[in-house]
């Protein structure tokens, strides 16, 4: 398995980037491949709040932090690294990856690169696709419709959609189903991974007293998300055959 880098981003804020990053961490951990994660919400770190053991907060505008991610991809135990890109930094981050030669190395199959582009409901999200597409021609580009915060994607009509997607090589579209608001809110308050909430444990791994009903909602939602990630064969995408070295 090549070292893999997953970038989760959107230029718009509030579309659920961190939720998707959390889901990817939990999915990979559940499948025996716990990733390391980088939270670019510097210095706050929302992702780190839920996964403190595997998340570092980084400032991607700093070369030293870029090195902390890219230069160590082949060195660390975790074979997958997830970077949760803060709002407004998706374009610059992709340019940086191109500038430092990372995307070239992806094209040479030294690394696996996945982009999870979280789409918002407006056409401006589609315009982001045009911005992102040139950087992911040889990568694995997933568009994600995140319904968790009740997004309806009402402004999209098929013709507009096709006009943006016509030339984009997408590895698949992922739909994150809606989670009951109360359940989502309780997980937020608990400050634990979704699966820890389902297991009724605190962040300190002590027995908690979360609602049985809300745990049920989260459990069923996680199963649906897992089915979505299974459907796009994410594990296979992250473990492509190595390039022959004849």
């Amino acid at each position, binding site marked *: 398995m090549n070292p893999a880098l997953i970038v989760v981003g959107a230029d718009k804020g509030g579309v659920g980037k961190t939720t998707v990053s959390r889901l990817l961490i939990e999915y990979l951990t559940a499948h025996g491949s716990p990733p390391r994660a980088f939270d670019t919400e510097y210095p706050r770190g929302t992702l780190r709040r839920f996964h403190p053991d595997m998340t570092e907060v980084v400032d991607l505008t700093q070369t030293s932090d870029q090195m902390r991610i890219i230069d160590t991809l082949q060195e660390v135990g975790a074979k997958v690294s997830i970077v949760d890109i803060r709002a407004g930094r998706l374009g610059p981050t992709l340019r940086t990856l191109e500038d430092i030669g990372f995307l070239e190395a992806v094209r040479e199959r030294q690394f696996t690169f996945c982009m999870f582009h979280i789409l918002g409901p407006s056409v401006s999200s589609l315009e982001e696709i045009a911005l992102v597409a040139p950087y992911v021609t040889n990568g694995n580009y997933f568009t994600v419709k995140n319904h968790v915060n009740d997004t309806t994607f009402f402004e999209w009509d098929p013709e507009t959609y096709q006009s943006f997607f016509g030339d984009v090589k997408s590895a698949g579209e992922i739909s994150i189903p809606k989670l009951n608001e109360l*359940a989502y809110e309780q997980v937020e308050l608990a400050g634990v991974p979704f699966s820890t909430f389902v297991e009724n444990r605190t962040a300190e791994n002590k027995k908690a007293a979360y*609602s*049985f*009903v*809300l745990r*049920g909602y989260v459990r*069923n939602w996680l199963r649906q998300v897992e089915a979505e990630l299974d459907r796009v064969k994410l594990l296979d995408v992250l473990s492509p055959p190595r390039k022959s070295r004849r």
Partner: protein
Amino acid sequence: MVAQGPPGAQDHERDIGGEKRARTVIYLVSSPQPRVGKTLVARLFLDFLIGTSRNPVLFDTNCFEPTLASLFPERSVVVDLASVRGQMDLFDPLVEADGRPKVVDLWHGAYGRFFKQAEEFGFFKEAAARGIQPVIALLTDERDQFADELEKRRSMWQDAKIVLVDDVGAVRTVGARPPYPLYHAIEIPELDPMVRRAIEETGWVSYRMVSRPQADDATELELRSRALLEPVFWDIERLDLKLALEQSPSIP
């Protein structure tokens, strides 16, 4: 005479996964059909549990017309299973092994929703893990729909404790019995109007009267109630004893 349970009886504690938990029984009184006698059966379970000082909690799932809850407001919770809050009001306490018996009057309008949610939330599995004993008291009906329901519940929950209840006063024709042994069966005779009114319109705890020796100056209501309800409470006592023995630490 029906034997009286010990006053203030505390159900014994069990060791579940290294934790001491009190014996907790849930009676889910249910039928997908209206007017088959669910509320009367729930009421008789409640009478028995109050009469044996077990401090039961009643959950009335008919949020539009909570008949039974209105008679016992101090020990009742009215829940609307269409809302998440309502689901939490019901299922969260149901998975608490707190030693308090619970009676759920499962209105036919909430019947399908309850079992769907129970399955989605993993209610029966969670209850088993916590040493809680849910009992499904399924009412028979003239169209024999209960037979299909019986199969559904058994396939949903392999170790289901299903008690078939015939309320002869509500359902004139008793349906065919399944070819396998049931956990228990209860028959409610047709009640005369005086007894029925006393039960349906007041908070009178019939078990208290039925379980004490008959007085020489017994009232007409007492005489009629004793004749009609004593056999029913025998059945309920036997069921309760069976459940208690299953959880007794001395029974392997």
